[in-house]
């Protein structure tokens, strides 16, 4: 049996960029800021491509929800080895209010339409750190979920997934179809090479709107304020343990 794998990839502000809060304090500055694929989603794409290389998957479909530039993210996925892309167009203005639930509904609908048997997404996006899309997608589809995967192996009709949990590693089996979210150590994603980027230009990207999938983008959440993390106060050096204890007591820490 070979699977069709649906992979979510989000366009986020690049991890190396220093984030600046917008003057209206309702978001961060995105104009003229370098964006790239969410690193956890890169891992998800890589895993799907490896499944294809091992002939476990027959097709890898990369999905991204976002403005026109989301196509760049899809192109990267295609250059890494995904077979085709789906761009769910969401204007930049609406993008700010896009919630994991909306994305989950879109992914669930697409998984059904595409008859995918496996959905892989990053465990979280590095911009809003929601860590909810995989879980909600599984719930909406009523499929089993294997989150925070650090190893993934296919057995008959099942996936054996190693998960990174607080106490160590947990190995679970899930029946297919299933939803998997990738953790940091699942793999090391390959670089999109220049020849593959050129080849990816010929791969197809289907465009659609959330309404085409019957997904309503009504908001459930409201952003009240976005602020910079408080700046850390400078510490002090103490001579010995006694002084340390006294200082801690004085400041009410112990």
């Amino acid at each position, binding site marked *: 049996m070979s699977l069709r794998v649906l992979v979510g990839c989000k366009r986020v502000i690049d991890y190396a960029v220093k984030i600046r809060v917008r003057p209206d304090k309702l978001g961060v500055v995105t104009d003229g800021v370098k964006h790239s694929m969410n690193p956890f989603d890169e891992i998800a794409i890589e895993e799907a491509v490896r499944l294809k290389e091992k002939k476990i998957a027959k097709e890898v479909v990369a999905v991204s929800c976002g403005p026109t530039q989301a196509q760049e993210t899809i192109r990267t996925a295609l250059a890494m080895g995904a077979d085709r892309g789906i761009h769910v167009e969401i204007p930049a203005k609406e993008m700010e209010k896009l919630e994991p639930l909306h994305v989950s509904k879109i992914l669930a609908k697409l998984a059904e339409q595409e008859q995918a048997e496996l959905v892989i997404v990053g465990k979280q996006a590095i911009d809003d750190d929601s860590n909810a899309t995989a879980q909600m997608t599984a719930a909406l589809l009523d499929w089993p979920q294997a989150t925070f995967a650090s190893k993934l192996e296919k057995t008959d009709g099942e996936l054996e997934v190693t998960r990174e949990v607080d106490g160590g590693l947990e190995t679970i089996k899930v029946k297919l179809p299933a939803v998997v979210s990738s953790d940091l150590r699942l793999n090391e994603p390959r670089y999109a090479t220049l020849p593959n*980027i050129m080849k990816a230009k010929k791969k197809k990207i289907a465009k659609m709107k959330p309404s085409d999938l019957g997904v309503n983008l009504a908001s459930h959440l409201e952003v009240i304020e976005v602020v910079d993390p408080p700046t850390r106060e400078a510490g002090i050096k103490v001579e010995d343990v006694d002084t340390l204890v006294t200082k801690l007591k004085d400041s009410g820490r112990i």
Partner: protein
Amino acid sequence: MRSTKLLFSLSKNGFNKEITPALTRLQSTAAQPAAADSKPAGKEKKMNKEVKPSLSFVMNMFRGAAVTDQAIPYPYTLSSEEKETLEMLVDPTEKFFEECNDAMKNDAMEKVDETTMQGLREMGAFGLQVPAELGGVGLNNTQYARLVEVVGMNDLGVGITLGAHQSIGFKGILIAGNPEQKAKYLPKVASGEQMAAFALTEPSSGSDAGSIRSRAVPSADGSHYILNGSKIWISNGGMAEVFTVFAQTPVTDPRTGATKDKVTAFIVERAFGGVSHGAPEKKMGIKASNTAEVYFEDTKIPLENVLGGVGNGFKVAMEILNNGRFGMAAALSGTMRYSIKKALDFATSRTQFGNRIDTYGTIQEKLARMAMLHYVTESMAYMISSNMDAGSKDYHLEAAISKCFASEAAWHVTDEAIQVMGGMGFMKESGLERVMRDLRIFRIFEGTNDILRLFVALTGLQYAGGHLRELQQALKNPAANMGLILGEGTKRARRAIGFTKGGPIEGVHPNLSESAMLLGRGIEAFGYCSEGLLMKHGKNIVHEQFLLNRLANSAIDLYAGLVAVSRASKSLTENLPSCTHEEKIARVWVNEASDRVQLNLTAVKSSVSQSNFKDLASIAKDLCDNGNIVAERPLGI
């Protein structure tokens, strides 16, 4: 009419007949440093060139004309699809160099790390301009330039490894190869499975590439060539499998039946046998790149491996070198970005005498000048790449200038970056001393800047000389050419009385109208000066290197001014956020360049300068005769 007489005397001097061989020798700007030996003139074939109209700005400057078709408005030739493709390629390339390559380690090992090499192969970095159907990335010159900038910003040692491979190593196959040669060789070199090298320079033939001694003779049965000779300072020489080799071959003139040696280019595989190489050379910089001697001993080359036709090797070599020069300007504008960033990081965080050092005029001037040099270099690189992509053939002087300018600008910028950082800049860990060492070769190889200056001056003068000849022809039949003669006549008369009505360069943004005016005047003065040189020296101008260098420096300054004004105008018109910043850069550049041009052009004419040049020549002669410093120490001991 005085000028008429001069024109006729010029023709009697046989100016073009004489200047051409000299120029041909100058074009023989090998990929490597000059060696001392030089051959007598007259050996080269006589090129009876007619004056073809050129769209080159620099070329036309020599006849005092501002031909800005290729320069204003600042060219932009990428289609939206090409731009989109490029956008996709830049990120992964930057990421690769930042995360997978260690320039310091490569420098210390004097070798590009094997994992980097493998990464570069996978990246497709060895075949950036090879068509996709032959296994390359299929980039045009502008796209290539942008990626090369990334390389220049990160590691010039890797840059040379890549450049020696594709910018010269197999470039000949790409631009002069036949379909069979392309199909046979390009896929293997584009993938990086096989490395390529360009083998022109020999122990006795550096700048004077026409004098190579390697020789390939047809075998007795005529089935192949047999190559013997040795090449030095060949980048990638120790690791290449495919060489573009230049060697003398006997060529029989079908008309006269006489047989003469002419240079022919060959594609030589190491696998042909008889190919060996020396140990990697120990160098000042670009240590990570491999440089070695390469020897050919009875190497059998199949007939079908002649590249570009028997006897055309010289032309092939020049085309390869001309074609690749803009890449150096692109790479070095990347290097300058790197050095400037270092200086800025330091200047904006270092406090001395109670203030951040960027508040002091001394540092401000350094930083601003660094940015100006970078701006000009970058503007040249992309103007030329765009001209080339638009199909221009008239870019050789511009490309030569860009190579000179970029290599000197990058040297100066990095030197000043070290100065801004003071003692910290001198430390290895700041990452600038390596760049400084790496940069030094760029003023030497692929045509030394000294040779390229002469090349620019003489090519331009030859072109202007041709135009003078046309005017002279017109004067033979004044009735039919009255318009031309009158036009020239009044222009000359005006200049003769020192009244320049040289109009401003057209198409410049109004904010830069003064700069446009200065450039216009500069070009007119330059044309006048060139013409004066031709009339005064005739064919002997080829021996006046003191003058030619000053002419070339003026040409460089004016072209630099033009690209800066053109690009800043475009930014102003498009109202880019940086447009006023760019406007200032262009204005300061042109103001200062204009002064320098005046100084240089005056030096060409003034009697004080003439006597200085004489003295300089004789000082040098004293030194050389003495073989050492001539003056005694003031101490007498």
